[in-house]
């Protein structure tokens, strides 16, 4: 419990640091927001009025805290290019990105854990060798290209879904999930191959441990030793990887969204980057960062639950 609390405090501090850094960076480098809003040919009076309205003459730290507390209250500012509330622009897109990342995560686990266990049990078998070779190849396919391949095979040839036919989750949740299955698969595949490789290697190195021999000598069956004793130890490095994979998936969804033309956070982020619409970019980066940090914290806590040594050591 103390460990969880400590991790939570660390996360909050990191979020504050990240937001401070991002806020400062945008304020120092991005230039004058007044010019972005009004254009270069605005009259000095209007510029002055807007500067006062946006509190731009205050010290930057004060502005940061004002922005931070507004953000926490849910007021994310107003978009420069669309002149509407940022919150209404992005809040309904968060579930799209989250669904894709979570679905990809579970797909990865469903693919990786059974295959990892099976191949470590039957080293050198035909399946084992096939998996190793396939792993190396799939690992080298970038998610957006596997997305294109999946669109071609499942969308055009087998006609299992309509490419570009995204259905909003508010309209039809079932069709939404079905459409999201393919982008999620595209993100999950390369991560799954790495997880298989890691789990297989980790299990194989456990086979020679003393405790495994002891467990056998006490009359446990092969499966009893594997699932009752070894898996718990072998899964530890895999869990660290799964956590990193989930955070990568959150970020990776930005790219795969483009392949499957899904209007999620990634779409808005990219248009806002090219429009130099900083309030939107800032809000999206902070939200994605918060998701990433939250995942990291949860992984640390889960890790300490599986391996109690961790929380004692610190």
């Amino acid at each position: 419990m103390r460990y969880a609390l400590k991790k939570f405090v660390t996360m909050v501090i990191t979020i504050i640091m990240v937001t401070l850094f991002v806020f400062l960076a945008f304020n120092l480098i991005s230039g004058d927001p007044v010019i972005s809003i009004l254009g270069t040919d605005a009259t000095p009076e209007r510029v002055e009025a807007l500067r006062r309205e946006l509190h731009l003459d205050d010290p930057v730290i004060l502005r940061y805290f004002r922005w931070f507390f507004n953000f926490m209250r849910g007021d994310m500012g107003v978009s420069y290019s669309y002149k509407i509330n940022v919150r209404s622009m992005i809040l309904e897109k968060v579930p799209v990105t989250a669904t894709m990342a979570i679905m990809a995560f579970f797909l990865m686990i469903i693919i990786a854990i059974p295959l990892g266990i099976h191949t470590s049990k039957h080293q050198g078998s035909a399946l084992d060798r096939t998996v190793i070779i396939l792993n190396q190849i799939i690992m080298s396919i970038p998610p957006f290209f596997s997305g294109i391949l999946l669109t071609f095979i499942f969308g055009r040839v087998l006609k299992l879904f309509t490419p570009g036919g995204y259905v909003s989750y508010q309209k039809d949740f079932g069709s939404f999930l079905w459409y999201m299955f393919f982008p999620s698969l595209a993100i999950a595949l390369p991560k799954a191959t790495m997880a298989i490789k890691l789990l297989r290697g980790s299990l194989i190195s456990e086979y020679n441990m003393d405790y495994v021999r002891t467990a056998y000598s006490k009359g446990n069956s092969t499966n009893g030793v594997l699932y009752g004793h070894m898996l718990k130890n072998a899964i530890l490095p895999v869990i660290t990887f799964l956590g990193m994979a989930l955070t990568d998936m959150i970020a990776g969804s930005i790219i795969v969204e483009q392949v499957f033309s899904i209007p999620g956070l990634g779409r808005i982020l990219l248009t806002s980057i090219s429009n130099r619409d900083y309030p939107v970019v800032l809000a999206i980066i902070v939200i994605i960062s918060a998701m990433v940090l939250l995942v990291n914290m949860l992984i640390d806590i889960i890790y300490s639950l599986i391996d109690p040594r961790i929380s004692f050591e610190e």
Partner: protein
Amino acid sequence: MKNRIKNINFILGASIICFMALFILAGKILPLRDPNAIDATLKFAKPSLAHPFGCDNFGREILSRVMQGSLSTFLIALGTVFIGTIFGVIIGAATGYFGGVIDEILMRVNDAIFAFPSILLALLFISLLGPGTYQVVIALGIAFVPSFARIVRGEFLKNRNMDYVKCARLMGASHLRIMVIHILPNTLRVLLNAILIGFNNAVLAEASMSFLGIGVQPPDPSLGRMLSEAQAYLFKAPNYALFPGLALILLVLGFGLMSDSFEK
């Protein structure tokens, strides 16, 4: 047995990279059509002897575009890894060797950055610097520094109290000399592996950025951008997506196999 597999991996990976290098070189030497030359009569020409990979939606030669695109992907990856390595080694060596408060602070910052997916960091920098080739090199380079710094720091930390370092110090060698001449060569094996993995990630990251339209700007060819354009004509001209994709996979596969063989 294990070593043999590793050697095979290395030879296979190195051959793929050599093949890609020859392929890129061929694009510079052979009298192919200009990658940006437009010809409406060749729009979506099917692969043939005259146009081995076919032509794209503007009638541009896909073969020469893939060659040129592979070159720019490779150069961007090179620049990225270069920035990552140089700054990573300097930061990692200084913090690992001297330790202390600066080490503690820098490593906390490093950990915080490391926890972020590099593509997100690169997007953040791109949104500050604006899209473009050089911006991508800088953005990805900065995003790659923490992973190099972390690896190098670990090695310096391990080596700094070893006997050979103590001996060198007794002989009056300066800190700089110990770091560069004595410790750095001992980190090369780990560093080389990190560089190969870095190449792998940089190629993927560059392609993703170009795919999103914030990397290499048109009309210059890049593998990621070609893939994103090819998507609209997936059924009409699958070869348009296939060849840039294959070039990308070969680059990643080559570096991946080579870095695999360095793992313990």
